[in-house]
């Protein structure tokens, strides 16, 4: 369903197999002491990597690592522990250590494969290195499909390209970037690799990558973490991203498209800075799932120091998500904090349509009026943006 990054270690292991000499280090797998230097690298590197110069890097799917100082190139084993402990202090946990491949900058090539509608699109530049984005004119495009030979990319050995495509297909890759790539005759050296896999492929991949290899998008907040965990346990869709923790406008939105329309409305009305969160629930979550999801948003709202706060429960006209049962879940969550919400003068604004719309809206309206949280409630006869418009007016007052 979406493209997710796997560790560089796993990506290289999948491409190079047993001949890959890199070692993955992260908390738990190879035991690191809680703090202080780790001198085990010496033993590790000399015995397992059979080299004397090394590359060490943070392996957590971070872009532009080099510029951020998260890569140590051409260093002796003694320097590795120093770099790793420095990175650990910055909060990183996954590292990769490989033998260093001495090469000239002129040898560096750029190669990427991406799945597109008609096959696999290859981008190649014979001058690679880190500055590739600055020189798009050097990049040549090829399209691989079953009818074409693997000799179409000059400078890339046929055998290697064929192997790459096989690995790509077998492991449900969506995107693979090798930059730089060094080719010497039939030998290829993958100095740096990034892979996005298709998360929907997880059921079909055998002896490839697994859940453990996925680089988690950094959940910056405990609420995001909780929703991510909840999402893993349901076929429904539950998403939450915190925008401005000190905002006044908090969203309980539904539907992938409708939620964007409503968030757009706030941005277009110039209150983008007040949006506390973006998120959406859809695909027919149960009452209980909606309750747990709504609770996270309500807590965010309560934690915001903004003086005027509004909760917007809004979405399009659902096709099959039941309004009655999801609203019951939301009311369950509101009930946990009704007193506090009322004391803080929070108002709730609602616009929603779909199956059992009337019953759901009536139930919500009665509840909000009873608890003195009522802002406005409307259904599919009103414009999708009406609740957020009312809420904006309320917080602006």
């Amino acid at each position: 369903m979406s493209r997710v990054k796997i560790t560089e270690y796993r990506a290289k292991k999948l491409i190079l197999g047993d001949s890959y000499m890199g070692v993955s280090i992260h908390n738990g797998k190879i035991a690191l002491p809680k703090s202080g230097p780790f001198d085990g690298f010496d033993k590790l590197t000399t015995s397992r990597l059979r080299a004397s110069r090394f590359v060490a890097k943070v392996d957590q799917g971070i872009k532009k690592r080099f510029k951020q100082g998260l890569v140590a190139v051409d260093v002796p084993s003694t320097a590795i522990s120093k770099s790793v402990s420095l990175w650990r202090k910055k909060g990183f946990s996954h590292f990769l250590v490989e033998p260093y491949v001495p090469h000239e900058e002129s040898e560096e090539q750029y190669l990427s494969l991406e799945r597109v509608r008609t096959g696999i699109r290859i981008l190649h530049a014979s001058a690679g290195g880190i500055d590739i984005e600055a020189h798009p004119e050097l990049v040549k495009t090829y399209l691989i499909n079953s009818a074409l030979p693997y000799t179409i990319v000059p400078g890339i050995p046929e055998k290697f390209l064929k192997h790459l495509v096989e690995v790509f297909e077998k492991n449900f890759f969506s995107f693979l970037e090798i930059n730089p790539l060094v080719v010497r005759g039939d030998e290829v050296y993958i100095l740096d690799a990034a892979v996005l896999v298709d998360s929907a492929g997880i059921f079909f991949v055998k002896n490839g990558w697994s859940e453990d290899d996925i680089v988690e998008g950094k959940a910056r907040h405990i609420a995001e973490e909780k929703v991510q965990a909840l999402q893993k346990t349901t076929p429904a869709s539950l998403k939450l991203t915190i925008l401005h923790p000190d905002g006044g406008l908090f969203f309980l939105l539904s539907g992938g498209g409708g939620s964007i329309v409503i968030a757009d409305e706030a941005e277009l009305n110039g209150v983008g800075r007040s949006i506390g969160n973006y998120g959406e629930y859809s695909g027919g979550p149960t009452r209980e799932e909606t309750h747990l999801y709504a609770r996270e948003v309500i807590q965010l709202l309560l934690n915001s120091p903004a003086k005027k706060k509004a909760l917007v429960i809004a979405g399009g006209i659902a096709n099959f998500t039941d309004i009655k049962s999801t609203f019951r879940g939301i009311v369950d969550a509101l009930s946990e904090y009704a007193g506090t919400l009322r004391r803080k003068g929070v108002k709730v604004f609602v616009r929603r349509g779909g199956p059992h719309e009337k019953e759901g809206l009536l139930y919500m309206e009665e509840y909000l009026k009873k608890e003195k949280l009522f802002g406005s409630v409307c259904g599919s006869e009103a414009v999708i943006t009406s609740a957020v418009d009312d809420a904006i007016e309320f917080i602006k007052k």
Partner: protein
Amino acid sequence: MNILELTRRGRVRVLVIGNHSGIIQSMLDFDFLSGKDIPSVLGIVAGNRKAEKYFFGTKEILLPCYKNIQIASEVIGGKVDWMLNLQSGRRAFESTVSFFDFFPKSLGVHIFAENIPESHATELIKRFGKKYFIVGPSGVGLLIPNALKLGAIGGVDAVQIKSGALTSAGNIAVGSTSGGMTNELIHAVARAGKRISFAIAIGGDRFPVVSLTQIFALAEADPQTKGFVYFGELGGVDEYEIIELIKAKKFTKPLVAYIAGIIDEAFDEHVQFGHAKALVQTMDESARAKREALRAVGVIAPDTFPQFLDALQKLPGGTYTEDVMDIQPLQGRQKSILSTRKVLDIDEGRVFVKGKKLLKGKENAFVEATLVALLGKPVRSPITRAFTEAVFEMLIDHGGNVSGALNTMITARAGKDLVSSLASGLLTVGPRFGGAINEAAILWISGVVSQKTGLEFVAEKAKAGELILGIGHKKYRVGLADPRVKALAEFATLLKVHPHYDFARSVEKATTSKNGKLILNIDGAIAALLLDILSECEGMSERELQELADAEFFNAFFVIPRSVGFIAHFMEQKKNDEGLFRLPDELLFVREETPKKNKKK
């Protein structure tokens, strides 16, 4: 002819794979409200059941279920136009391929699942993209007003079918990358006083099989479509393909578009929104850029959603035939909880004796052998045989509602075998169900032996607070005779004397004087007549009759034929296997415990 015209012109036949009863029911409601005589859904490919219950209008129907697509094709033949694929992302690819294998003449499929791997989607495009119309993966399907509702599109309850005017054909095409917004757009078009020509949720996946370009080409080719309403999001470059179509004059109809995702500008870094595709990777894929590019080729692409709704007025209108849709009867329908067939026509008037003569051709060797086996001696009279035959015929079944039939059906639905199910049904036979014949026989014997009048007998029983089995009926009453009793009563005319029957009738006379429902019922009539027949035709003494009653002989006249009926209900369950039975919550009253007082220590 394109798929729209092919679908609009005749009967639409859909095969569903996977299960989502709300969506399937909404398709049937759509068919019904569109005025179709026959539902579009032919059957469901789903698991181990053989049938599932749905409503067509207010009438219940059983939709056949098939174990796999091959079996479905064997039963249905090649005549399926569309498949609705509701399976999960793990299985949807395989079943879609299988569908086209077995139904090569079909038009297309909607794949509902959201988690289909990209490579499966591209493989579907490669293999089937040119030949078939595949909506999805993901999204909510395809809607052609008055003709086809393939998926959740337009909503799943009848209220939405009405509010979206889904059965009224118009001239505005609706296309959307978002399922929820498809419905929003359909309703917006209806609110703008226009009607749709077709609607498609393309799905938020990266590689929808039917591409946006194809949908615009379809709208261009469709003579009914006069304008297009489009909802798109940030991410992806599909909108640039529309722009190319417009530039090349391959799409010439008026287009109103809303591209959502301006909110992305409020984030520090690009965020993955609800849909797989909704992640901006390069600047060109931003909502603002796409909106502006569309405007540059003359598309109405407003900044805000309310402006977008206003712009719908600029699309061509039309005159629409408005159906008066009465959805009231479709609301609050109560599904039955079990299903069976009519095993025996209970109300059929039967004649066994006419003009004091037995009607011939009703005897058979099985009945004779049964009587010999039970009585342990040869049967002398054809009257005994004919009476037994008549009782057996009538008691085979009394509908699926009675305890024994229910038990049999529930046991069968639990996956049990014939003997277990039959035994479970038979185990309900007793004082309240089916066991009344023997009890009535005991009463009539005692009445005849004691030489009491009916009135005295009734008074005595009333005083003791005892029920008189063999008397009373729920439906029949004085003036509305039970046809079965009436048919059997003719046997009395074949006898010289019939003291037990007379006594039973005298009891009836006493009871009906209090309540017209307290008539001699079928159990009582069988008992009385059988006693008289055995006495006169088979020469049995009152003592021998009492012995038979003590051994519950008279209940055998119920158990033997009714076993046949139970087996019939059992077989019906196996035929339409609807899976394990569970009583719906609303049909079960759970009494609240009265709180116990805490004992103080």
